[in-house]
C-alpha cells in the first residue's frame, strides 16, 4: 500500500455558514494503481485530491504516503515532497504563458537544479514518449487545447513522479484529444508503474482506471473495480452514477 488516507475531513467558510466539503473519508491506494475519483459537481473530488497532494491541509485526519504522515510536515517540506514525488495535470493545464514548451516541460527538473545533461535526456525521452517532439520551441499560446494538456502531462511526468494527480484532465478536451491523453496516461501507468489518482465526472475517462471511488456529499459512497474488460467496467460506472444521480450513458440524468 502506497497511500493511506485516514479519517480526513475539511470544512470551508465561517462557523455558521461552513460547508463540509469532506466528511471523515478513509482510502487506501496501492502502488502502481490507477485510481479514479468520481462524483457529481461539488461532491469533494478536487478537495480530496488537493489534500492528498498536499496542496491543502485537512482539518482532521492523516495522509500517509510511503509510511510518512504528510499532514505533520511543514509547508516547506510539503512543497519539497510535492516537487520530488508528485506530478500534476489540471483541467486548466496550468502552463506558464511566459515560457515556451520546452521550458514548461523541464520546469520541475530545473526547480530541482538537476544537471543540464539529465534535463536534456529526460526532455528528449518525454517528448518521444508522448510524440510531441515538434512542439519543443513553440509558445504556449500557439498550441491547441489537446497539445497543451499533453505538454502539461509531459511536465508532470518528466521527473519520474511516484504519484500523478490529474484533476479533470480531459475536462477541456474534445473526445479525440481526451482519448489520446488517456491512452498516454494508461501507458505511463503500465510502463513506469506510476500511481495515478484522477478526479473526473466523466464515465468514459474513468473507464481507463483500475478502480473508481465514488464520492457524494463529502463521503465515500461506493467503489467499482475494473474487471479487466473496459466496456463492462464502463457499464458498471454508468450504473453506479445512475444510483448516485450523477448521470447516465450520455451524461444525462435518469429522470430526464
Amino acid at each position: 500500500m502506497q497511500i493511506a488516507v485516514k479519517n480526513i475531513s475539511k470544512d470551508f467558510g465561517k462557523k455558521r455558514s461552513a460547508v463540509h466539503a469532506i466528511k471523515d473519508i478513509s482510502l487506501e491506494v496501492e502502488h502502481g494503481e490507477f485510481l479514479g475519483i468520481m462524483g457529481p459537481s461539488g461532491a469533494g473530488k478536487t478537495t480530496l485530491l488537493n489534500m492528498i497532494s498536499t496542496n491543502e491541509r485537512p482539518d482532521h485526519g492523516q495522509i500517509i504516503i510511503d509510511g510518512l504522515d504528510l499532514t505533520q510536515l511543514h509547508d516547506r517540506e510539503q512543497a519539497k515532497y510535492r516537487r520530488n514525488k508528485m506530478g500534476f495535470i489540471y483541467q486548466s493545464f496550468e502552463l506558464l504563458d511566459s515560457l515556451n514548451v520546452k521550458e514548461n516541460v523541464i520546469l520541475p527538473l530545473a526547480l530541482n537544479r538537476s544537471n543540464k545533461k539529465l534535463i536534456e535526456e529526460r526532455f528528449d525521452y518525454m517528448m518521444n514518449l508522448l510524440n510531441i517532439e515538434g512542439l519543443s520551441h513553440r509558445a504556449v499560446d500557439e498550441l491547441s487545447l489537446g497539445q497543451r494538456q499533453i505538454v502539461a502531462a509531459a511536465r508532470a511526468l518528466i521527473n519520474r513522479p511516484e504519484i500523478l494527480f490529474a484533476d479533470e484532465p480531459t475536462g477541456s478536451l474534445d473526445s479525440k484529444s481526451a482519448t489520446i491523453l488517456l491512452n498516454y496516461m494508461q501507458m505511463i501507468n503500465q510502463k513506469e508503474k506510476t500511481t495515478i489518482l484522477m478526479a473526473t465526472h466523466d464515465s468514459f475517462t474513468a473507464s481507463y482506471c483500475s478502480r473508481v471511488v465514488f464520492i457524494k456529499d463529502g463521503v465515500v459512497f461506493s467503489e467499482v473495480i475494473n474487471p479487466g474488460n473496459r466496456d463492462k467496467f464502463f457499464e458498471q460506472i454508468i450504473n453506479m452514477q445512475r444510483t448516485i444521480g450523477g448521470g447516465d450513458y450520455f451524461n444525462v440524468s435518469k429522470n430526464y
Partner: protein
Amino acid sequence: MYRKIIRRSLSNMRDSYLIYILACSFAIGIFGILESMGDNPSLHFALHMWDSFISDVTSIMSGLFAFCAFVYMIYVGGFFIKQQRNEFLTFEKLGMQRWVIVMISFLQTIIVQALAWLIGMVLMLIFQKFMGMLLFYLMRVRFNFEMHVSLTNLWFLIQVFLVSTLILSIVNAIKTIRILQKKKRRIIIKTRWWLRIPAGIFGFVLLLSAQFCTAMLFKDIRMLGYSSKPLTEVFYIMTADIFGTYLVYFGFLPFVLNILERVHSLSYSGVNIFSFKYMKDRLFQNISILWFVTELSALALALLTFCYFGYQAVHQNYNNAYPFELAANKDTVRVIKDELKKTDSKVKGTYKTPVKINLVSYYSKNTQSYIRQPMTFMSYSDYMSLPKRMHKGNAKINSHQYLKIDYSSSTFRYDSEPDEHNIQVKNSPMIQTARTGSSFPYGSSMHFGPMMIVPDKYYTKMPAEVEDTFYGWDFKKGDRLSRGQLKRLNSYRDAYFMKVDFKSSLSKSSIEVMKKEPHKYEDTYTQAGFLRQGSIKKRFKQGGGFYLFIVALFSVALLVALGSVLTLRVLLRDDYQSRQLRTLQKIGVEESEIKGIIRRENTLTFVIPIIFALVQSYAAIAMFDVGRHISKNIILIYGGYVILYGLFGIISYQVSWRSVKQKFSL
C-alpha cells in the same frame, strides 16, 4: 447591484487603493496646510518683519504642490482603471450598457477621491499646528502657533476638491471608454531585439561618456567665470544621462536578462528558468515608469544638492561678512564699550587683534592685470588665536606660510582658489607664495581690501603706513543695543579714510589718513568703525529655517509620490502574471522561492532607478562642490534619501508578497 460592483472592486484592490489614498491624503493635507498657513494670524504676528513674503511663498508653493499632486493623481489613478480592464470587458459581454460601465468607473473615482480628500482634510486639521510649530522651531521663533482655518480657505479647498474630482472622474471615464473600444485583452510586447540591442549599447555608451564628462567637469567648473566649456559639459551630461538612461532601460537591461536566460547552466537552475523571463516581462512593462522615477529621483537629489550648497554658500557668505556679533576698531572701541555698559548684554567672549596696513602690488590672475592697493596685515599667532570659525573656510597654513584673504569671485568658489605668487609689499621682502582664502577675521566689511596673514617675524619687522587694532565680541542672546543707541552709533560707521598717493614704485607711494569724509573718492579707501550682526542674524536664521521647511516638505512629498508610484506598479500585476505565480505554487515551488521572485522583482524595480539617479546626481555635486572632495554632509543627505526610498522598497515588498499570498489561498 451597481453599488455592490463598486464596493467589490474597491475591496478587491484595497491594498493598492489604500496606498493611493494615503499618498493623495498626504498631498492634500500638505496642500491644505500650506494654503491655510499663509493666512494664519499667528504667523503674521510672529513674522511681521517678513511682511507678505512668507504668505506669498506658501501660496506659490501650495499652487506648485497642487499641480504636481494633480498630475500624480491623473497618472496613478489610471492604473486602477487599467487593472479593471477584464472586469469591464466581461460586464460588456454580459450585456451591460457602455454608459453604465463608464458610470461605474466615474463613481468609483469620485468615491476614492472623496475619501482621500476627507482623510487629507482631517490630516490638515490635525497636523496644521504641528507643522506650524515645526516652522517656528526651524525659524527659531518663540511663539505659539495657533491653529486657524478661515472660511475662505475652507471654501477654496472645497472648490479645488470639486473641480479636481470632476476632472479626474472624467479622465478615468474616458480611459474606460477607450478600454471598451479597444477590447485588446493582453498586449503582446514586441521584443524587437534588432532595435533594442544597438539602442541599449548606445545608451550605455552615452551614460559612460556622461560619467567621463562629469569627471572632467569636476576640474573644468573652476573655469566657469571665463569659459563656456563647463556649461557645454553640463548640457551634454544632462542630455546624455536622460536619453542614455532611457535607452539602457529600453535595450540594455532586457538584453542582459536575455543573455542570462540563454546561459542554460544559469537559467535552468531553480526558479531562474521562470524568474528571468518574468522579470524581463515586468521590465518591458515598466520601462517608462522606471525611467520617470529615475529622472525624478535624480532631480530630487540634484535639488537637495543645490539646496545644500546654496545654503552653505549663503551661510559662508554670512559668516565671512559677520563673524562676530559686534566688531570695532581702535577709534570706536571706547564708544561701543560705553554703550554696551548701558545694556544688560552678557559678553561671552572678547577678542583684540593688532593689524598693520601697508601698500602692496601683485598680478591678479582673475582680472589679468597688475593691482596696487593697501592691504591689512595680521600675524599668524594673532590669526590662530581667533575662534576656529574665522579660519575654517580658509586654506590651512603653518607658522611659516602666508595666507591671502580676498573677496570670493563666485558664491560657490570657496576653498578653491589657487595659490598666489610674487606679492610685493612696501619696504618689506616680496611674498613668493601665498595660500588663499575668503573668510575674513572680523568680517569682510571691516576691510577695505584683501588681507594677508604673515609669519610673526615678518609681521614684527614690516613697517606700517597705518596701524590699527580690531576688536570683536560674542554675546549670550545678542548685544541688546537699543534703537536709540544704534542711532547714536550710526555716526561712527566710518572710522577713517585712507587716500593713497600712487607713484612709480611702491616705496615712493604713501597713504594719507583722513578723519573727515573726502569730497572725492578717487584712490580713497574707507576703514569701517564698527560692524553688527543684529537683525541680519535673526533674518538669516529665520530665512534658513523657512527654506529648510519648504525643501524638506517638497523632498518628502516627492519621495512619497515616487515610492507610491513604484509600489503600485509592483502591486498591480496583470491577471496572467498573478496566475503564473499561483501555478508555480501548485506544481511544488516552495513559498520561499516565490517570495524570492517577488523580492527580486522589487529589488529590480527599486534599486535600478536609485542607482541610476545617484550616478546622475553625481554630476550635480560636480557642479557645486568644487572642494575636490565630496563632503560628509552631502553623503549624509544622499544616504538619508536612499534610506527613506529603501523603506518604500521594503514596504512595497511586504505589501506585494501579501497580495500574492492572498491569491494563493483562493
